[in-house]
């Protein structure tokens, strides 16, 4: 049986090649950060959480038994770390930095304005959903993950995941369809 790229990297790390861990970080840093950011809506917190996730992954790598795939495993750790941080922050009267969440990624000078505005609106719409549903939507529509894998990551039943996805998709659709006609008319006129 052919071993996956992740499995090969893990074996390298476990045989003492610590620098091989860089490959895992490079491969998953954006998605781990994105999931943390979807939950926390705060750049620094999401970055700290993502760092904690990688340290945790490194610590428990020898215990990873390939029963699930590595991607599902690391996303599960990310989801739970983010939720735990959010809970501890909420206990300290944490206020979600909504503006920061909306403007994230705007420092890319190559992005044209209309695309940046479009992204900001989509982010704003996405933030109307509860954090768990934001994660589910990201995993389902961006990562193309199965309901089964999402259920494993969030530790919810598949029926529950389906229900939440259906509900959040409807909500997003209602909010986005108006924007959609605006975006398309904007594109046609320019």
């Amino acid at each position, binding site marked *: 049986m052919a071993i996956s790229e992740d499995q090969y990297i893990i074996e390298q790390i476990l*045989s003492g090649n610590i620098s091989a861990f860089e490959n895992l970080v490079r491969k998953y*840093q*954006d998605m781990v950060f994105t999931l943390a950011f979807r939950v926390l809506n705060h750049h620094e917190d999401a970055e700290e959480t993502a760092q904690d996730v990688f340290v945790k992954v490194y610590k428990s790598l*020898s215990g990873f038994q390939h029963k699930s795939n590595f991607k599902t495993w690391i996303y599960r750790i990310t989801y739970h770390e983010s939720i735990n941080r959010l809970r501890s922050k909420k206990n300290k009267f944490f206020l979600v930095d909504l503006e920061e969440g909306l403007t994230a990624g705007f420092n890319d000078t190559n992005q044209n304005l209309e695309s940046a505005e479009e992204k900001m609106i*989509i982010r704003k719409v996405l933030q109307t959903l509860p954090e768990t549903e934001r994660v589910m939507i990201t995993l389902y529509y961006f990562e193309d993950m199965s309901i089964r894998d999402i259920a494993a990551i969030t530790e919810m039943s598949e029926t529950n995941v389906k229900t939440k996805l259906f509900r959040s998709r409807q909500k*997003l659709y209602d909010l*986005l369809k108006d924007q*959609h006609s605006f975006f398309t008319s904007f594109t046609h006129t320019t």
Partner: protein
Amino acid sequence: MEQEADKLVRTYIKKIGVESPGQDFLQSVMSKIEVKSDLAPVLIKNEVLISLKGWFLIGMVVLSLSGMVFFIDKDSQIPVLIQFDTQILQNYFSIFMSRIFVVGMVIMALFVLLHTWMISRKLDAWYLRHKHHM
């Protein structure tokens, strides 16, 4: 309607893509890992309960015990002297072991050896699994 919703949401979610952490994210993670060197998940291959030297010694003892069986007469007895250096018993007591007894002891030693090997394998596996949680 549902398909339309699915298509539209997918398009927009793909459009926003992923967020990126800061430039020094990789360095920060790697420095955290390198500083905490005790966190290393490296499997220590030679860290076993019984070393090669130990196994050699055990092997020699078993071989010499087994060898004894072939060098003694069928009906002979093996004298073993046990000295009781007390005031009450100041004599030498001789204990004689029959050949069958020696054979029995050797078989038992082999069993002990086998069990030691099996237990050490199990303990090694357990140690490697739980090393980082200790």
